[in-house]
């Protein structure tokens, strides 16, 4: 049986790394036929954060209806699917395992290849779905709940990790500070909204590792500074200027991210900068990055709001390009909750210096 040409491949993507159960069908590498996302935000809201066991319990109930709906919306039959791509990390282990087990069951039964996808690489590849003309090379700033990183995407299968967070990710700092200020889960979008009403220069919070040429991030110092500020204001009996705190904190995070991203893009000789990850939905970050990129003569893009959330279309997209380079998984594929971003060089390339 001869395989279709890659442009006609139908890739089924599955994503269940945290609190979204998602399935998507892609034709070729860029055409999203469906992208069904079931979110558990209403379920976890009362707990103030995602409860892993509860997330897993919802994934196991929702996974099949979500897959069924993705196929229905795409108007394709399951037997026409050419490959199954699934997130195998990073994320919550119990949540990941539901998607991985389902993907294996489908791939085995259909007799099609299985492709394990790194969720963070998926976020970068979401940009290929939002911008059909986008081609490597470019610089990607990845900002998600658990990760902050700068990745030089040289080709579809060739990345160089320039730096990542040494401690807390930007998203973690957002969530923690939102919780301390009594904002409901998820905290990131609440801080973003609040920040629009506040003065970003009201409070001078620190910026870590801001020396030139350093592409690593650190947000634990900033997080502590904001928490200390909130505590000391409370001790003094002051009413919390929540909007100013949110704006000043967000400003501090954004300045570090923007400065490093633009500098890294220029240093690497990239004419393009893209934003990726859940925090890419932060309007303040997006606006400031756009402005700074423009001033530096860089083209800037970021995924649509839907493609910034955890979704299976980006996983199918990453899976498609892995399949093009023959990067499949076997049925021993396991979930890797602590999977990170790392440089990747395909087998037929010599490792690069630096």
């Amino acid at each position, binding site marked *: 049986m001869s395989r279709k040409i890659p442009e006609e491949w139908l890739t089924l993507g599955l994503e269940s790394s945290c609190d*979204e159960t998602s399935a998507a069908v892609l034709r070729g590498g860029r055409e999203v036929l469906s992208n069904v996302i079931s979110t558990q935000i209403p379920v976890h809201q009362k707990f103030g954060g995602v409860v892993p066991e509860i997330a897993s319990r919802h994934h196991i109930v929702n996974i099949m209806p979500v897959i069924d709906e993705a196929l229905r919306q795409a108007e394709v039959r399951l037997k026409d699917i050419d490959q199954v791509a699934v997130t195998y990390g990073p994320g919550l282990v119990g949540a990941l395992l539901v998607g991985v*087990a389902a993907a294996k069951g489908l791939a085995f039964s259909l007799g099609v290849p299985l492709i394990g996808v790194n969720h963070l690489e998926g976020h970068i590849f979401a940009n290929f779905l939002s911008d059909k003309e986008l081609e490597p090379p470019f610089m990607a700033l990845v900002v998600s709940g658990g990760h902050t990183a700068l990745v030089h995407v040289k080709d579809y299968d060739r990345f160089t990790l320039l730096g990542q967070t040494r401690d807390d990710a930007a998203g973690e700092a957002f969530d923690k500070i939102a919780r301390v200020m009594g904002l409901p889960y998820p905290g990131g979008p609440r801080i973003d909204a609040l920040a629009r009403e506040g003065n970003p220069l009201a409070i001078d919070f620190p910026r870590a590792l801001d020396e030139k040429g350093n592409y690593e991030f650190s947000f634990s110092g900033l997080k502590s500074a904001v928490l200390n500020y909130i505590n000391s204001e409370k001790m003094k009996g002051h009413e919390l200027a929540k909007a100013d705190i949110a704006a000043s904190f967000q400003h501090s995070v954004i300045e570090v991210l923007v400065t490093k991203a633009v500098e890294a893009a220029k240093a690497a000789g990239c004419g393009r900068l893209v934003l990726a990850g859940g925090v890419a939905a932060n309007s303040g970050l997006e606006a400031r990055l756009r402005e700074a990129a423009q001033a530096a003569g860089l083209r800037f893009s970021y995924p649509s709001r839907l493609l910034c959330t955890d979704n299976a279309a980006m996983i199918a997209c990453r899976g498609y390009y892995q399949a093009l380079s023959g990067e499949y998984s076997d049925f021993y594929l396991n979930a890797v909750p602590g999977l990170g971003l790392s440089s990747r060089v395909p087998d037929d390339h010599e490792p690069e210096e630096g």
Partner: protein
Amino acid sequence: MSILAIDTATQVSSVAIAQAGRLQAEITLQARLTHSETLMPHIQQVLDMADTKAADLEGIAISIGPGSFTGLRIGLATAKAMCYALDKPLVTVSTLAALACHLPLPGICLLPLIDAQKGNAYYARYHWENGGLVAEDEVSVGAMADIVAGCAAEKRPVILLGDVTQRRIAGCMELPDNVTIAPAHELMPRAACVAMLGLRELAQGHTANVMDAAPIYIRRSEAEVLWEKRHPESVSTQEAHAVLVPTEGKS
């Protein structure tokens, strides 16, 4: 026509292919490997060993719990996806009932136990009557020491089953005179038993819904129990559900 049976409820990983009255092949491992890695390769191997094509299966039987939450979900997600792709019926079998299938001895109380963490176990009593397995009570969860001590009140011999008895009861606590532990090879869950009970369910048309089947957990998550303790006033309020994110339409 054959059935594929899966049991990943405990540390034991087991898959089997069986027809009515005939076990064709079984792979059972108690090797502390992760179910996630080994389950799909084992299914592939057991089908090969039984010279059976997945497409020719009559259905799939899954050991539905109680047991390890994660283990149950790995087995069930695999089974559901296979049933969906192959268009086969899914049947669910109680993990405890499958254990009680090991010893079809009349006049004896069979007491399978499954690890429920922190010295606790899920359990239910069974006995055999006229060639059929009878569940005597609903599945409960309790301290293993209490369950074992409580057996002294039974007026009949009791046999304990379940791989947790080997690890937590044998040699760890004193057994009442009427209690024995099943031999090591009989006390662990085996997919062969899931297959036999599954075939019966299938013949009776007792199939599960592939779309929304969930494991039998017995216990709720600790976070929920804790939350309700802290918010006694809101216990009866409606449960929240996942919702679909509105899509942007096709691109």
